[in-house]
């Protein structure tokens, strides 16, 4: 496909990966990389066995364990028998089907959306699938990355393809500059607040503009990670020098002359300057302030200096009323000053080394507020090791944070890390849904890792810029 012919990255990768148009009218799309974890895959492997099918491309399939792993006591068998059974099922499946596996004691273990990029498995111009909605994270590299369900996992295992409908593309242009103390998390929460949690339905989101161009790869991952929270199945950033520099030298990235060839291919998939979009949205970066959620979905977000909104002024008053019922707050209250019980730094959204550095910068030399339970859960064993090399673990531990091993942890509380009763958690994760963090009455306030750190020290929601 010629350059400058009006195509988006989405168009180009879609076309180059199209196998066929199916009788249903759907496209059969080749999937370049399949990432597997323990929670959504066991039934898919069972379906393969029932049908007597093999894995089409085991060498394009990688597995790790993240959702159910304990982040403190990791000796086997795990204390939680159900978790142990799930881990054994995955271990058996990767052995039977000959899949490379980064298990609990492997130095490459970690949250699937942290380790894919870290190992250089995730590359521009590729299609990627994983049985997890936050697969959109990998779009940071200019990858078309699809979160899929278990029956679709079966299809990818059996055929390395998926039956999909083509999406429209919305360009989200974030221009200007971000103020100090404003992070990628604040940008994506602002975007979802503006466009709505269902606003991205039917779209892939292409993020661009000077703010995005200046972002590091880890910031772009945070941005793309929460595309699905805005209803967009796919989110991506066009690959550029920042992308290539990040990838060079990583274990699964080609070396030498092949790396040069890779860069040529990767460059060619970026959207043409004259690409046609189905929709364009402009966001002014300088107007974004540290942002937090106040309700029960990620679109219910406000700047930290704002008061809680009147439901009747919002697009969806019913969901807002339901949010107030659950959170126990009233419109007009200031969000700053709300007391917290738990502080959680972690998840596929914000558990990378730059996230931990930003939080440690706030925490250094200070103490967690009495009564606040605070934990840091690095996104991968490698992030953990790097943080320890930099002494970040000491900064957190000295302040009173628990320093844990890698996993999804309290983002969705499938392991022992969870809220109790009506606890309020300042969380760097991605979902403030009712019951998400393990207690039906638990309350989640989403924010950047630096904001979580500041909340942990203050015992309440504060503007992190007070700590600079």
């Amino acid at each position: 496909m010629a350059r400058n012919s009006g195509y988006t990255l989405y168009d180009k990768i879609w076309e180059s990966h199209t196998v066929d148009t199916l009788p249903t009218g759907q496209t059969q799309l080749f999937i370049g990389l399949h990432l597997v974890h323990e929670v959504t895959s066991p039934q898919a492997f069972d379906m393969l066995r029932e049908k007597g099918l093999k894995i089409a491309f085991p060498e394009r399939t990688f597995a790790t364990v993240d959702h159910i792993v304990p982040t403190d006591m990791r000796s086997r068998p795990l204390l939680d028998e159900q978790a142990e059974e799930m881990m054994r099922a995955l271990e058996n499946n990767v052995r039977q089907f000959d899949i490379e596996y980064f298990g609990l004691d492997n130095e490459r273990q970690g949250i699937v959306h942290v380790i894919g990029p870290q190992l250089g498995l995730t590359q521009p111009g590729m299609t990627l699938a994983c049985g997890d909605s936050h697969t959109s994270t990998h779009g940071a590299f200019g990858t078309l990355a699809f979160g899929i369900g278990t029956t679709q996992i079966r299809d990818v295992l059996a055929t390395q393809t998926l039956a999909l409908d083509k999406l429209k593309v919305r360009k989200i242009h974030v221009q200007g500059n971000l103020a100090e103390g404003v992070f990628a998390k604040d940008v994506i929460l602002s975007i979802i607040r503006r466009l709505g949690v269902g606003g991205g339905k039917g779209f892939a989101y292409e993020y661009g503009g000077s703010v995005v161009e200046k972002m590091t790869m880890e910031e772009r991952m945070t941005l793309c990670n929460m595309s699905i929270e805005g209803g967009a199945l796919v989110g991506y950033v066009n690959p550029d020098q920042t992308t290539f520099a990040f990838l060079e030298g990583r274990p699964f990235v080609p070396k030498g002359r092949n790396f040069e060839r890779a860069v040529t291919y990767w460059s060619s998939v970026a959207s043409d300057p004259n690409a046609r979009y189905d929709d364009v949205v402009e966001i002014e970066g300088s107007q974004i302030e540290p942002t937090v959620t106040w309700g029960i979905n990620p679109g219910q977000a406000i700047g930290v200096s704002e008061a809680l909104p009147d439901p009747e002024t919002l697009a969806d008053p019913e969901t807002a009323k339901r949010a107030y019922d659950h959170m126990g707050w009233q419109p007009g209250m200031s969000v700053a000053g709300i007391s917290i019980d738990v502080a959680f730094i972690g998840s596929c959204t914000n558990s990378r080394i730059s996230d931990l550095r930003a939080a440690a910068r706030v925490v250094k030399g200070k103490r967690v507020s009495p009564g606040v339970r605070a934990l840091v859960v690095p996104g991968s064993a490698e992030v953990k090791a790097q943080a320890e090399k930099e002494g970040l673990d000491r900064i957190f531990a000295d302040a009173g944070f628990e320093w844990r091993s890698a996993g999804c942890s309290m983002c969705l509380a499938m392991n022992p890390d969870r809220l109790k009763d009506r606890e309020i958690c300042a969380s760097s994760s991605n979902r403030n849904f009712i019951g998400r963090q393990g207690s039906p009455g638990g309350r989640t306030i989403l924010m950047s890792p630096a904001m979580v750190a500041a909340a942990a020290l203050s015992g309440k929601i504060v503007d992190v810029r007070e700590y600079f």
Partner: protein
Amino acid sequence: MSGNISKNAGGHVDSRQIKQISGKAIPARGNNIDTDRIIPARYMKEITFSRMGEFPFYDERFDSNGNQKPHPFNDPRYRGASILLVNQNFGCGSSREHAPQALYRFGIHAIIGESFAAIFAGNCVMMGIPTVTVAAGVMEQLMKDVETHPETSLTLNLATKTISNPSGQVALDIPETARKALMEGFWDSTSLLLANSDKVKTALSRLPYMTGFGD
């Protein structure tokens, strides 16, 4: 008891073809009902889907002692319903197929809503559960009708793209690809995809990363 899934009438009977679903309906009111509400993550720690039918809306249906709370899924008037009625952006959040599996195993065989989240709707099609949409005003009337006369049967017809009940008929929307997949029995897509293995080889020969960018 569950709804009647009609088979292809006439000579060739293919159990995978889903053209019409009739049954009682059950409303679950509210926009943006996420998959954590449909099935909390702590009930997903199982290696099969077999028990998922016990868990739909668990935290909304039961208190911490396991006692029932008021919820349509606990309401005897809706017992045996096979068609779920929902509002906007139903199934947002996680990709967990445990959510539609929980609903299906509870007895839900079709969902009518104002809109659905993408991954949830995709999972439903893969399982042979039609997710069809109607406008907000139509949904309000359907929900009111069902709340007033829960014993009434609805019929969802994919061939005519209509929903009918004793008080009349309304048009439904469904992506044409999903309608075809369900009606022609292609929703269980593995065999369709497997049949193209030669074309897969052609497609991947265009992709330089498949050879590590080597010669």
